[in-house]
């Protein structure tokens, strides 16, 4: 009885994993295919689509823009979110719990709604610069991910350590840097990783804020798909998969994936 149940659950687990990984796995061989159409299994091996990334109009530029926006918005969210989380956890501001809920609320709002709202807001405050508007919107999008992990890490952090560091000669900011930061590093890394990825492949919010000169990668890829649907896209996707795996490995080295998953 118990063995039957165990075998069944193993099968279900395997199916779920296949279902999750299959699409990603299929993209990789396609990117090395010599033919111009998406065909599986591939009929040969070539790197022409990787070379084509350079020729394809705007993909590299979009990649660079997305990296910038994701990196900057993650960094800004990390700094502001952490300071805000400390204020909430330490009760420096009245109604801190409410603020925490508010700052994680973009998670619960559909991206399209958020995108329209951000566009409207940018117009209202007269923010003409497309880059700045995009960055601001991505800070809003990434903030909840940072807030969630940092708040969870801080809940387990003993602030008496900060007091101890202060009594040993650290100013308050220095104490945070030397004691709080190293101790909640796993939370920072996993929050930052999430935030980066969420910003990097955000479509619904960005679509309202991009203009001709500022197109993020997901939007550029979709354009590309409409104009010339060839395995160049698969090549870009493969590169992103590899980069993601590399990022995970680096994080594992840095803080350990177990500790990251725990927060």
């Amino acid at each position, binding site marked *: 009885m118990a063995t039957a149940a165990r075998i069944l659950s193993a099968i279900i687990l395997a199916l779920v994993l296949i279902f999750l990984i299959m699409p990603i796995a299929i993209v990789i061989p396609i990117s090395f295919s010599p033919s111009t159409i998406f065909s599986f299994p591939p009929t040969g091996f070539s790197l022409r689509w990787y070379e084509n990334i350079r020729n394809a109009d705007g993909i590299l530029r979009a990649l660079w823009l997305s990296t910038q926006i994701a990196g900057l918005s993650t960094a800004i969210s990390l700094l502001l979110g952490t300071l805000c989380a400390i204020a909430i956890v330490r009760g420096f501001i009245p109604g801190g719990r409410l603020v925490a809920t508010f700052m994680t609320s973009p998670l619960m709002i559909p991206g399209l709604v958020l995108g329209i709202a951000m566009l409207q807001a940018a117009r209202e405050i007269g923010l003409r610069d497309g880059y700045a508007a995009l960055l601001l919107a991505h800070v809003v999008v990434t903030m909840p991910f940072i807030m969630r992990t940092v708040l969870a890490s801080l809940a387990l952090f003993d602030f008496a350590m900060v*007091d101890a560091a202060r*009594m040993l*000669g*650290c100013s308050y900011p220095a104490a945070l840097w030397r*004691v709080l930061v190293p101790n909640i590093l796993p939370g920072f890394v996993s929050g930052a990783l999430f935030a980066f990825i969420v910003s990097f492949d955000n479509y619904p919010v960005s679509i309202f804020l991009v203009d001709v000169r500022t197109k993020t990668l997901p939007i550029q890829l979709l354009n590309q798909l409409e104009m010339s649907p060839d395995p160049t896209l698969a090549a870009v996707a493969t590169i992103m998969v590899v980069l993601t795996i590399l990022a995970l490995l680096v994080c594992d080295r840095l803080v350990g994936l177990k500790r990251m998953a725990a927060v």
Partner: protein
Amino acid sequence: MTSVARPAPASGRPPAYLQVAQLTKRFGSATVLHDLNLTVEKGEFVSLLGPSGCGKTTLLRLIAGLMRPETGRIVIADRELTRVPAHKRQVGVVFQNYALFPHLTVAENVAFGLTNQRRSRDEIKRRVGEALQLVRMAPFADRSVSALSGGQQQRIAVARAIVVEPAILLLDEPFSALDRKLRETMQIELRHILRDLGITSIFVTHDQDEALVMSDRIAVMNEGQIEHLGTPADIYTSPKSLFVLEFVGLSTRLGGTVVSSHGGEVEVETAFGRMRAPAQFRPGSPVVVAVRPEAISIGESEGDGRNVVRARLTDVVYLGAKTQLHLRGERSGDLIQAEIARLPPGGLPSGSELALTWRVEDTMVFPAPASAAS
């Protein structure tokens, strides 16, 4: 000229090393410390003793600079600290849960303060080594602090605080997480270390035995004020209030009313008869008459100069060093608990009629608490 406001030395003596004057702290509408005053001499070990919630931790945090008082001032070694931020006060703190840094090794924890002072590498190494030697933790220098027992963590917390040679050391119930046996060892050990180094210390506890064993002086706190600051013997033999009497040591207490007062002596009517005591109260004042257990003898010479309580013994509770007698008054039927040092040879049979006597000089009188006016 007026920038350095030195408090005037009281009665020609040099000012105390630590002076806390008129300190008031509020949290919202709750006043946690009322106009609190405390002085500590250099090298002294003073315990703050008081029930939970009386403001002991708050007082320590104010001295440390981790909180700001509403009013009052704090001076250490002639240095006005009231507006100095925590990290510039040179105050050492040993926290209740130690607050060691788990991302650093034992040696790195102890070196933390010296690193902040930008000491040379050699000096840090030498002083950390000495501090670890002092707390007998030298072999553990390269261990992770999370791999230490409670007593070992406690030692590291002490080493980390004293290695920077603070002007004063504050300890907030440092032994509360240790078992009784270890606690007693650590009490003696810590006391020796601090005395050898001549470090002025304030030690928070709500364990009266701990305070009596370790302290040069004890400050008994109640509801945000210091009710009595004195040597352990002083606190025990002549407590300044009923609260101090009850909080430190055992006692036998009888409620009553003053009937006469002359020549520095009062006579008090109680349910167990009239008691005399050296004190001054207006006739008619509700008071509590009290006596420490050592002063009581059973059935001895009732002669002059002694107070007597006659009662029937209902229970004997043996408490190790002390024995508690539960007694019922002959006339009134009131119950009292008398605490005595030792039973007479042959013991005391339950139900026997006893006469407890003690000298008038050993009798203490306090104003009755306002709430117990019945």
